[in-house]
């Protein structure tokens, strides 16, 4: 059975237990949240949640209906990737090894990565990319001495 990744964008009430309700509604039925991003919108009473999950179309349908049933969920959009811009953000910490120093410098320049912190031994990069691209970049950075990274969930906005 096809287990594609799906992105779901939600507008919800900005209240203490809303995330727990969403996580509970999905977790209780055995659906996993693979990535998650939450923050308030311009209206502080409303938060936007973007989450990704995996499953076939029937699963996606069920998840959409389950979320729609929650009282504190205002709107549910299943994201059609063709109509949305999708990005993730990663902060990557790299130990600067002598043999990679020049390679890292070239990559930073050509990929337009941002160096957000730096000392003699380490540097921290800020990288934005879509999910597939990010997988490749992180693979690449791990070969250049990346020691740790923090990766956000997917965020999306309609074109």
């Amino acid at each position: 059975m096809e287990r594609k990744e799906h992105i779901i964008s939600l507008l919800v009430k900005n209240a203490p237990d809303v995330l727990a309700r969403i996580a509970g509604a999905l977790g209780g039925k055995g659906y996993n949240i693979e990535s998650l991003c939450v923050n308030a919108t311009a209206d502080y009473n409303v938060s936007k949640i973007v989450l990704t999950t995996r499953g076939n179309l029937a699963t996606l349908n069920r998840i959409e209906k389950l979320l729609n049933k929650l009282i504190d969920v205002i709107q549910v959009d299943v994201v059609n990737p063709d109509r949305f811009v999708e990005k993730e953000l990663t902060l990557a910490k790299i130990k600067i090894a002598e043999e990679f120093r020049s390679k890292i410098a070239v990559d930073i320049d050509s990929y337009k990565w941002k160096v957000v912190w730096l000392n003699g031994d380490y540097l921290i990069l800020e990288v934005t990319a879509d999910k597939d691209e990010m997988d490749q970049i992180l693979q690449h950075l791990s070969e250049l001495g990346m020691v740790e990274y923090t990766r956000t969930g997917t965020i999306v906005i309609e074109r």
Partner: protein
Amino acid sequence: MKLKGTQILFKVLEQEKVDTIFGYPGGAVLDIYDELYKTRLRHILVRHEQGAVHAADGYARASGQVGVCLVTSGPGATNTVTGIATANMDSIPMVVFTGQVSTALIGNDAFQECDITGITRPCTKHNFLVRNIEDLTETIRKAFWIARSGRPGPVLVDLPKNVMAAETEFNPEPPKRRKMDVAYEPVPETYEEILRMIQEAERPVLMIGGGIILGGASSELTAFARKLRLPVTGTLMGLGAFPGTDPLWLGMVGMHGTYYANMAVCNTDLLIIIGARCDDRVTSKIDCFASGAKIIHVDVDESSIEKNVAVDLALVSDAKRALGHMNRMIEDRHFEINTRKREDWLNRITDWKHQEPLMYEQDDRIIKPQYVIEKLYELTKGEAIITTEVGQNQMWAAQFYHFDRPHTFISSGGLGTMGYGLPAAIGAQCALPDKLVVDIAGDGSIQMNIQEMATAVQYNLPVKVVLLNNGFLGMVRQWQELFYEKRYSQTDMTYQPDFVKLAEAYGWVGLRTDSPAEVADMLKQGMNTPRPVLMDFRVDREEGVYPMVRPGAGISEMTLFPRKKCV
């Protein structure tokens, strides 16, 4: 007008037309109970909080109104969980108020503190913790609105002690709210399509569930089925939604459904499901459920559609509106069905009915539980409000008592909660003081909330318990007999109280018989006694419920009643 939280609670209850609440006091709700003391609201003091929730549930099912409970924090609140989950599975409108420690103490593991909103999140339709007195009025109103709207369900409101003691301006004007399901206005083409599919079908079957009763759509359904000559089967929750004595009624579908209902569902070419969620006890093996048929599913809850059964046409609507609309369409135009084909189909179903009716073998030495229910049906002319416990008693009640009207069969369907029947009967009797309310019980289940016998006496609620006493956890025993080679692991309950003496100790009338010849007279005596009565029928210990669809089998593969000789 400035009011305290406790005063606001009762003001809003009055506005919501609540006349009875079921509850149990405690430390965190002392202020609320003190305010209650000054009102005229009827409060039924139960003997265990689980009893309060089931009683409110029975009240809601019998009356169609929202059931209301009030309990204290901590253990008071956790004791409500089974009752809330019961109501949630069966979509029963209910508001449960729980006390909570003061907001400053929440999270400190204070005495009798528990995170009841956290605990009940998965088993309520919604719940609230009221942190500010300013939110109280609106939250209570919203709780009632949520409990009633769309697919109904239980809502819990957690009330911290300091919030209830605080004062705020009370706005007596409730805000206008739209109905929750207005967003789903079906397009007329969907109705056209449904009617066209019915017209084209050769062997249609209507399968109805609790949604018909909850949506108040029984008369629309009955008119619809009769006009279109549709045979009707129902889930356990749908019993009473369509007259059980109508020739079009096939009885219950599913694991313990009738042979003819299950055969009809297996051989139909169009199954119209209304207000049912198609759980595993109904469908059994999903690939064999109406496998050759087109399926139409009408439900107010979108998430019930295509959850278990793939459908050809879905309509998200409450049953009353959908059926009412289609009835008008049928009346407005010359709507014809193929009468000859339809009568052929109905005749085929009748043949199945004659071939394998619901049956049992009468015995003149030992009481058959089915016989007790048959006699009860005759004696009450089908007009009693029946509650049940869970297990064999529940299935025999569903099979052998015939329900002609909605709100007359009150049973824990989805969760299957043992101990439901007695408190539910108490709640139903509170809602309908002039009706005969009978709990059809088993000796296992009745002991799970037997403490509520005191409640019935305290409030002069003349409920009747028809105890089918086989000294076993009968349904589990039946499974052990059929699937575990009669290894009766922990299901023998021969050690039990003397139920007659127990009844008398509580102030009930207790009656007992083990003779088939005495069944009718004892029932008559019990029903005619204007007090609570427990009737202990010592029945055949190893009687089984049939037909039965074995777990994992398709619903046409039934184990039928093991006939020795026919009645």
